[in-house]
C-alpha cells in the first residue's frame, strides 16, 4: 500500500450521487458540485505532513485512543497548549505542550499517566504538531 501522504492522487467521495438511468436524465446532473477531497481538509501542508500511530491511552482526554492515526504537521510552530509529537530521550511521545515560567511540561491527559517535566540534561525535541486525530468508531 503506497497511499499516504499523496501529492497527486486524491481520494474522492461523491458529494451528490445519482444512479445511472436509461431514460430521462436526472435534472440534478447540471448541478453536480466537485467531489469532497478529505486530503484538502486534513492535509494543509502535504510536504510537511506525516502520519503517526498513537500507542497507549495517555492522551485519552484529548480524544486520542491507542491505535488512532495522528496527522502531524511539521511546518506548524508549536505553541503553549499544542498537542505535539516530541522526542524525549530517544523515544517518540505524544503530549500537550505546556510552557510556564521558563519550564516545559509535556502533559498527559489521563490521570493514570504521568506528565513529563523537561529538565536541562534531557534530550528533547519537538517533532511536529498534531492537527487531526483519525479514530475509527
Amino acid at each position, binding site marked *: *500500500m*503506497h*497511499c*499516504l*501522504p499523496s*501529492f497527486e492522487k486524491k481520494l474522492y467521495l461523491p458529494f451528490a450521487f445519482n444512479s445511472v438511468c436509461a431514460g430521462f436524465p436526472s435534472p440534478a446532473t447540471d448541478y453536480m458540485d466537485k467531489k469532497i477531497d478529505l486530503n484538502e481538509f486534513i492535509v494543509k*501542508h*502535504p*510536504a*510537511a505532513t*506525516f*502520519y*503517526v*500511530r*498513537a*500507542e*497507549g491511552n*495517555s492522551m485519552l482526554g484529548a480524544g486520542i485512543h491507542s491505535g488512532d*492515526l*495522528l496527522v502531524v504537521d*511539521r*511546518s506548524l510552530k508549536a505553541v503553549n497548549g499544542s498537542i505535539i*509529537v516530541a*522526542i524525549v530521550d*530517544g*523515544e*517518540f*511521545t*505524544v503530549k500537550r505542550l505546556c510552557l510556564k515560567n521558563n519550564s516545559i511540561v509535556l502533559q498527559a491527559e489521563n490521570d493514570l499517566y504521568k506528565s513529563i517535566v523537561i529538565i536541562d540534561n534531557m*534530550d528533547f*525535541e519537538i*517533532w511536529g504538531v498534531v492537527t487531526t486525530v483519525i479514530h475509527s468508531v
Partner: protein
Amino acid sequence: MISLIDGNNFYVSCERVFNPKLRNKPVVVLSNNDGCVVSRSDEAKKLGIKMGQPFFEIKPFIKKHDIKYFSSNYSLYGDMSARIIKTLEQFSPEIEMYSIDEAFIDLSHVSQEKLHEFGWKIKNTVYQHTGIPCGIGISFTKSLAKVANKIAKKSAKAKGVLALYEQSHITEALKRTEIGDLWGIGRKYAKKLKENGVNSALEYRNLEIDWLRKNLTINGVHLAQELHGISCLDLELFHEPKKSITVSRSFGRAQSDFNDIFSALANHTAVACRKLRQEGLEAQYFCIYLATSYHKENFFSDSINIRLPYYTSFTPEYLKYGLIALKKIFKENKMYKKCGILLFDLKSKSTLPSHLFDFRNLEQENALISTIDQINNRNGASSINFADLFINKNWTPQRAHVSKKYTTNLNELILAR
C-alpha cells in the same frame, strides 16, 4: 544567482528522522544487496569508514563502535526527496532536481545582500518541514554554487550556508577547492591536471582556453567559464529524453544455475521495457551482461549486443532474444553475482517510420502490453507478468536490514506513546 541544496548524508539523515536512537551514533546505509556503504553519518566518517567500502570489511568493528547499519530503503528516501523538492517550491519558481538528494534552484529574484539570510531561511525551513539537515551553496553559476556548497559543509564558520558573490571570496574559495573536487572533473582528468601542475580550482580557472579545449574538450572550457561566473550550464527544468536505460542488480546469493539467472534477467528486462514504454520510447539495440563477484578471485564477466529486427518496446520480444543471447554467454560452473540489461539507441515511438517487412500484429501487441501495464500500475509492480519471470526467485537482492516504510505504508508508521 543559483543555489545548490543537498541533504547532508541523505540516506542516513532520512533514517534518523524516524529513529531518534540513531542520533550521535555512527550509522551507515548499504547499497542494493547490502554490498557496500553508500551513506555515512559524520560519526561513521570519523571512524574512517569509506564511501563504497565493502560491508564485510566493517563487520568486525560493528560491536566495538556500536555502528548501526541499514539496507537501502528507497521507498523512504524517494518520498523524503519529493518532500524536500515540494518544500523548495516556496522559495523559487525554477527548481531542477539533480539527483535524489541534490537540487539547483534559481535565486535571481533575491538581491545580493539578502542571499545569505535567504539561504538560512531555506535551510531552516527544509529542516523544520522534513527533519533533513542540508547544505546550501549560492553563487553566479552552477559550478560555483557547487564549490560554495562543498565549503559551506566543511567550514565551521559557514555552518552549512555560503553565498559567494564577492570576487575576493570566490578567489579564496577556488584556492581552497582541490582539483579533484571540482564538478565534472573525474579521477582521470584530475590526475592529468595534477601532472600539469594544476592542483586547485583557482589554478584551473587560470588555464589558457586553448589548452583546455585541446586537453579537456569543450566541457573543460565551459567549466572554466563557469568558474569565472559566466553561466554555461542552465537549469535543466525539463527532462531530456533518455538515451539509454540500464537495469542491473546483484544477486542475493551467487548463482550458477542457468534458469535462475534467466529468471533474474527476465525480471530486469520487464522493468527496463516498462521504463521504455513510460517514456514513450522504443529501442532496437540491447546488451545483456553477466559477472562474477568483483571482490573474489578469477573475476569473470561477459556481455553481448543484440540487434532486434525492428524498434520495439514489447517485452516478449526482448525476452525471446535475451534467452538466445544468454545461452551464448553463459558458462557452466561459474558463480555469477550480477546480471543486467542495457537498452540503447532509444527513439521516440512517434517519430519512427513503419517497416515494410513488419509481420507483427502491432494492435494486438499494444493491447496486451498496455493492459499489463495498467494492471501493474493499479495493483503494484509485478502483479501480472510473463511466465519467464516466475521460474525462480533465488536471486532477489538481500535487504536484510531494511527499516520501515514510515511515510508510505499505514502499517509501518512510527509509534508515539
